[in-house]
């Protein structure tokens, strides 16, 4: 099976879907001539021409609005944000228009639009360019939020996102673009809302998505040496959440740790914890533990940045805590 980079997997998904469906087109800053800020759209301008791969000005609100309108008229736009931090100037288009159009028009117009880009911290880009927006967007009815951690997931999930008739928030990560993994040559689709067991274990369920899956794997290796067997559940889609998969795992392990790069207050981990307390209260041996970013703007300084973000060490400590280990 070919081993390719995460960015290449996304590129393949875009190309395959554009070939399959002439209504799919790409829009965003530097996506065409420059081949994308992170080279996700590399070569697509040459293959599909400027009609279907369009560079835009630095006007997120404007081209997001264009995307909503195009989607309402029957096209299937894939809008790239150079990073999700810049979606904040377009948040009214995303929340008030993309998410609500189907409802506000009584089902006359749906918005089959994918918005994608890098989410979360990169290396020292400080507090304004390190936002984790999964909890923001998952809060809004009408939006699907997806967050693949591997090249395999990225390709199968982006294809599912493009084919879905609802607006999809598709979250990637700068560290992940260069990660490699096996991706089959034959076509496959990973359904929206279907999680994945990234590592089987018996003692603790560790829920992680995006880059946290990588950290979780390292933490699990360390914990295995202490005799603690960690099961890593990657929900892959934040919303709709595959809570059944998580619950099934918790019923087996009796303990749950949720790690996320974002902040804890009203965060993704809180949501998982609440749902698991609802579903599995009698199965828990310890209250659910959350690992997340400290409650402060993410600093630029390398040491402070590392101190603020969730880390392998913090995940290991969280797991030890639910195991009542010192």
């Amino acid at each position, binding site marked *: 099976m070919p081993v390719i980079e995460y960015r290449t997997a996304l590129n393949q998904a875009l190309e395959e879907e554009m070939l399959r469906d002439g209504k799919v087109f790409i829009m965003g800053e530097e996506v065409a001539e420059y081949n994308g800020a992170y080279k996700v759209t590399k070569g697509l301008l040459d293959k599909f021409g400027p009609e279907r791969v369009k560079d835009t000005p630095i006007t997120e609100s404007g081209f997001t609005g264009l995307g909503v309108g195009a989607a309402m008229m029957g096209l299937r736009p894939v809008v790239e944000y150079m990073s999700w931090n810049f979606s904040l100037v377009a948040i009214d288009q995303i929340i008030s228009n993309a998410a609500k159009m189907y409802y506000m028009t009584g089902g006359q117009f749906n918005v089959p639009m994918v918005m994608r880009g890098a989410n979360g911290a990169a290396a020292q880009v400080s507090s304004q360019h390190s936002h984790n927006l999964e909890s923001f967007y998952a809060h809004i009815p009408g939006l699907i939020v997806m967050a693949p951690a591997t090249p395999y997931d990225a390709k199968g999930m982006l294809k599912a996102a493009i084919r879905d008739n609802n607006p999809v928030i598709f979250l990637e990560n700068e560290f992940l673009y260069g990660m490699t993994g096996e991706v089959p040559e034959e076509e496959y689709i990973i359904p929206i809302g279907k999680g994945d067991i990234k590592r089987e274990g018996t003692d603790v369920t560790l829920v992680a998505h995006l880059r946290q899956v990588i950290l979780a794997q390292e933490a699990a290796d360390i914990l295995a040496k202490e005799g603690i067997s960690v099961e890593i559940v990657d929900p892959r889609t934040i919303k709709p959440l595959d809570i059944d998969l998580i619950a099934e795992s918790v019923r087996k392990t*009796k303990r749950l740790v949720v790690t996320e790069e974002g902040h804890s207050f009203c965060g993704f981990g809180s949501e998982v914890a609440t749902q698991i307390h609802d*579903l599995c*209260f*009698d*199965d*828990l*041996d310890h209250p659910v533990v959350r690992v997340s970013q400290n409650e402060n703007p993410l600093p630029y300084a390398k040491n402070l940045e590392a101190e603020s973000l969730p880390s392998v060490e913090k995940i290991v400590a969280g797991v030890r805590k639910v195991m*009542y280990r010192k």
Partner: protein
Amino acid sequence: MSAIIIQLPSLSPTMEVGTIAEWKVKEGDLIEEGMVIASIATDKSTVDYESLDEGYLRKIVLPEGDEAVVGKVIAVFTEEADEEFEAELDEALAAETAIEEVVEEEDSSEESSAPKAKPAPAAAGPVMASFVPAVDPPKSVAPPIGFVSDKTDVKVSPAAKKLAEKRKINLSAVEPKTTGSRIVMEDIENLPNGYGMNEGQKGSGLVGYVNRAPEPAADVNLSQMRKAITDRMIQASAGVPVFYLTTAVEMDKMLDIRQQLNSMEDTRISINDFIVKAVALSLRQHPEMNAAYQGEYIRQFNDVDISVAVSIPDGLITPIVRSADTKGLAAIGKDVRQLVGKAKSGALSLDEYQGGSFTISNLGMFGAVETFTAILNPPQAAILAVAGTSKQVKLVNGEVKEVSICKLTITCDHRVVDGALAAEFMNTLKNYLETPVKLVL
């Protein structure tokens, strides 16, 4: 016209299951209101039941000797002798099955979070009849004081609790070693099933086995009473800190007075009657001993109600001599004889065996028992074990003298009673028994 469905009634505040000891009527009989139709064994006694309804007994659903939970269908009446009743009976049984299924489902369900509504019993359709026991359980008697664990403040994780229930682990016997305050999975995962439930039945491994052809063992089903004894003794042993004090009492003066008293016509006083009286007066002097542990508080009884352990064919029961400190020896003797008679015929009513403040277990009639210790009768704080009386030698002013010695051992709940107090109590008791004229006054 409709069928009347008869269900197993609840005959005491603690009754959960009952056994039909005997059907006093048979299928086809015309039942009149007030007629005793069955005797039912509960956890402590067997009681006759009179019907509140009239009709023809058409079918006995629960046969003699079978056990069922309260509320189960046991029989069906009809108003006419030849009326159809099968459909309504089936409906009632189906409703019963449905409830059981829901209960089982709830027990085994790992999926559902929302509580399921229990289907209401088939209210429409057959009339549900009720019974009153021929001997009414006294309504004024407070509900029996149950065992109150001293570990109510120990926390248990939900998962550990669930596992303990599944594997019948007694959580009050488990130490929260991992956290110091909350019992978690790690504390119980490696414990054997049934841990702490029945310490007494576990073999020590030191039993010598004789090499011979194996003979199949006889398994005797637990009677209601045996189950009740088991439950209470487990409660009494699980995690209750106890201590024991033993004293030797010279019985000669008492035996002498007893002989004089019994030489009178119509007087029959036993050694046990003396002991009941002596214990009652001693408790009056040391009311802190006349108490019960209640978890959040200690209940000190103002009445001295002595429970007397009585061995009966089925097991053991503790009828009560009420206000024994106010009664004379003859009255105590009469009470005890009456209660023992009732106990042996299974006719004790609830208030006659529940709610005592102190228990005496007397094995004196078994001469071979030199000394023994009793298990607490919860929630009471103490129990006195009375062994057999034997001849022993004693030095008095350099001379050897023969005396009759009876050894008394008290078991005390240390949460309620401390050693010094128990020692004072035993001193007082010894003094009464060795100066028996005080008991005759």
